[in-house]
């Protein structure tokens, strides 16, 4: 579903991604771990199409098409979703209004009829229940006054409503206590299907106890220096990242 080939990206002249190669098939869950500053978030943002990042080399092929020339909304409509690490607050725009617009944009792209307010409300309530979210959050402005945990839950809620093909989670576990983590992981797991792929960027192994990955990659200094199964995550938990330094230097 997703093929990243030799991706190089810089921000303000400084190269952050130095040749990323990654292949994700539909139905798979990949975890991307790595020390701070390794480029994990950058990778997530470049996939989503954030302005300000210069892609200097490489390709990102999603479902057979290179998406690097597409604006963020096009990538989203084609089924790529980024769950932000730090979701922005948007006062004055209600969750309900914005998410309905987003869903209908996606549906329009797929040639499906738009959902009316009632059907959308019913769909939202169903998903909010799964995430143990208070229904009143719908009428509030996007992320305004939300705690860190509520913001992360809101990201996953949006994901459940929009049903993306590729979900990129940028440190979705950061700032969550165990209970919130379980609820969020539950939500993410409910999306697992043979047609869907998940890429979870995470610093700590903890999330991967609940969202069990098929492959784990270690990103260090802008490159994937090691890939393995879920045991790799446990090894990193025990040994940290420093034992990989020779591999980083070699790369």
């Amino acid at each position, binding site marked *: 579903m997703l093929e990243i080939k030799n991706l190089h990206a810089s921000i303000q002249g400084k190269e952050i991604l130095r040749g990323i190669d990654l292949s994700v098939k539909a139905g798979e869950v990949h975890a991307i771990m790595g020390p701070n500053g390794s480029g994990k978030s950058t990778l997530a943002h470049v996939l989503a199409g*954030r302005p300000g990042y210069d892609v200097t080399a490489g390709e990102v092929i999603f479902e057979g098409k290179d998406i690097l020339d597409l604006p963020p*909304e096009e990538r989203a409509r084609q089924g790529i979703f980024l769950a932000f690490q730090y979701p922005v607050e948007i006062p004055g725009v209600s969750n309900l209004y914005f998410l309905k617009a987003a869903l209908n944009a996606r549906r329009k792209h797929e040639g499906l009829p738009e959902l009316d307010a009632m059907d959308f409300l019913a769909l939202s309530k169903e998903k909010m229940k799964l995430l143990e979210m208070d229904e009143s959050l719908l009428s509030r402005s996007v992320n305004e006054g939300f705690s860190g945990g509520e913001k992360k839950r809101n990201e996953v809620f949006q994901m459940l409503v*929009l049903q993306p093909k590729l979900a990129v989670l940028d440190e979705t576990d950061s700032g969550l206590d165990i209970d919130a983590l379980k609820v969020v992981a539950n939500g993410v797991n409910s999306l697992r299907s043979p047609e869907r792929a998940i890429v979870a960027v995470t610093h700590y192994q903890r999330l991967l106890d609940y969202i069990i990955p098929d492959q784990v990659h270690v990103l260090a200094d802008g490159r994937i220096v090691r890939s393995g199964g879920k045991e790799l995550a446990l090894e990193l938990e025990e040994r940290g990242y420093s034992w990989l330094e020779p591999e980083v230097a070699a790369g």
Partner: protein
Amino acid sequence: MSQQDLHLSHYASFEQGRAGVDPEWLGPLRRRALDRFSSLGFPTMRHEDWKYTSVAAISGGEFHPFTGELPEADVDALGYGDWPCARLVFINGRFAPESSSIQGLPDGVRVGSLAAMLDSDPDELEGHLGRYAAFEEQAFTALNTAFLEDGAFLSIEDGVHVELPIHLLFISSTNGRPFVAHPRNLILVGKRSQVTLYESYLSSAAGAYWTNAVTEIVGAEGARIEHIRVQHEGALGHHVGTVQTQLGRDAGYTSHVVSLGGALVRNELNVILDGQGSECTLNGLYVAGGVEHVDNHTLVDHTQPNASSRELYKGILTDEAHGVFNGRIIVREDAQKTDSRQTNKNLLLSRNALVDTKPQLEIFANDVKCAHGATVGQIDRDAIFYLQTRGIGEEESRHMLVHAFAAELVDVIPAEPVRAALTAALVNRLSPSGAAA
């Protein structure tokens, strides 16, 4: 001849025309006002109160009193046709009875044309007309007072709760020659009475004109007045509007001033909290594009203790528009326990849009709460990206954010047709073609 002389020269024939029409006391008032205008002249940018706003388009323009047949007013086309209210329509400053309707008002309400009042009941006006809006230093008010002819008169007796909104609709329609009109409104609200008043300034034809309006509002003890003033002039419309509101003990005044268009707009809103326990809420929204200039000057004068004032003005500026906000608050020596808050927020949507914002607090009492703040910012790019990553296009995202910025003020306007008209005007102004309108 200078524009000042132009107006002065019109006065002679104007005064002649008023002989036999004006009550005795009005002549001296007019002449005093004219003398002041003559001494003051039009303000220049060297005057502190006008330092961000040039009135050259007015002082250098050829605006004559309107002559000729009054054009018709298509009120429905302006979007207010279906809205239930009592309505007085004025075209180019003159009352148009055929488009007006004052049915549905309770007893104790007197509403109609000021010109008709001057004719039939001038005594009722004598104690009020010209007593509130000062013209010592105010050239535009002086000119309006000298040339006043018509406008709205509204008087509500004590203890009357007026449910039906009252809409004063001023339509400007040129017939080719640029003209000036001086609408003069007098609103008297009795003790414990309540009213919702709309004052709209709209244009139904292209062409240059200048509206120089003065509205005096008096709220007696315990009165509650909600006042929505919408000003949406044409691209070549020039608007100077002064509102002077005087409140007695425990009276309340909520004002919404919405500026949606005009080449040059200056709104002056002066509220005198002249009674203990009185309060005012001043809301303002100004949207400008092209090379428009919109200037809101407000004054809240706390003369008595225990009064409160809240002020929220927001501006949205694009292209090369220029916005000005000057919020003056005076807290007099006796006005202890004053509770005042003023906020001005501005959203600039283009590189060349400009805003000048200035709070002006003059505090002479020592047991008061006076907070003020101002911001000037741009659209949050992170918010745009966030919306885009959910599939919402960039243009639509911008619209959502601008709408969200204005929503706080649009949502509190107590009439659906007005909110709808505002929302539509906002969308129109902010779309690529709308900006040039």
